[in-house]
C-alpha cells in the first residue's frame, strides 16, 4: 500500500516536471526538468518493481542513472558550442 502511495506521489512529481519542461522560458529550464524527470523515472521504476514483486528492473535503473547525466551534459555541450564534436576547453591557446 505504501508503495502504491509513493508511486502516485512520484508520478505527481513527474507531471509537475513535465509542465515545467513545456512552460520553461529558457532552454535551461527544460534541461533541468529533463534531468528531474530522469531521476523520477528511476524512482518510479524501483517503486513499481517493489509493488509488483519483481525488483529485477533495478538494473535498468542503474543504466538510466548513468545515461541521464551523460544526456544532460551532451545537451548542454550542444547548446554551448553548437556541435557535439567540438573539442571544448575554456582557455584560448597562447600560440
Amino acid at each position, binding site marked *: 500500500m*505504501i*508503495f502504491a*502511495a*509513493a508511486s502516485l*506521489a*512520484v508520478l*505527481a*512529481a*513527474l507531471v*509537475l*516536471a513535465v*509542465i*515545467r519542461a513545456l512552460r*520553461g522560458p*529558457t532552454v*535551461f*529550464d527544460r*534541461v*533541468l*526538468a529533463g*534531468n*528531474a524527470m530522469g*531521476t*523520477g523515472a*528511476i*524512482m518510479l521504476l*524501483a*517503486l513499481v518493481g*517493489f509493488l509488483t514483486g519483481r*525488483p529485477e528492473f*533495478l*538494473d535498468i*535503473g*542503474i543504466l538510466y*542513472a*548513468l545515461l*541521464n*547525466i551523460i544526456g*544532460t*551534459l551532451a545537451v*548542454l555541450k550542444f*547548446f*554551448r558550442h553548437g556541435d557535439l564534436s567540438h573539442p571544448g576547453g575554456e582557455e584560448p591557446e597562447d600560440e
Partner: protein
Amino acid sequence: MTGSIAEIAGGLLLALGAFFFVVGAIGIYRFPDVYARMHAAGISDTVGVALLIAGMMLFSGFTLITAKLAIILGVILFTSPIATHALAQAALHAGVEPLLANGKLLAGPGVKPEPAKAGRAVARSRSAAAKRKRPVKKAARTARKASPKGRTKS
C-alpha cells in the same frame, strides 16, 4: 499489523521520501527563476531519492537488491551535483541573469550602482538638522513659561 519493525520503518522512510520528492517538484514548478529551480531540483535529487532508497532497502533486507539500490543511490548522489553545476555554468555563460531578492541585478556591465546610498545620506543629514532644531525649541518654550504673560492664565 503484519509488518515487522523494519517494514514499519521502511514505510515511514518511503512516505518521507515521497513527500520531499513532491516538495522538490513543486519547487521546480513554482520558483520564479531558473537558478532557484536548480535549488528545488537539488532537494528532490538528494533528500527525496536518499529517503526513498533507504526505505526500499529496509524492505528488501540484506540481499542483492539492496546492493543494486546502493549503486543507484551512489550514482545519483555523485552525478546530480555535476549536472547542477554544469547547468548553472551553461546558463550563466549564455547570459541568463539571476533574479535577486529586491528585483535588482548584480553589478556588472551596464548596471548602475544602487541609488539607495544617496537616499540614506540625505536622511542622515535631515535627522541631524532635526536634532539641532530641538534644543532651540526647548529654550523658546522655557523662555515663554518664565514671562509674566504665561502665568496669568493659571
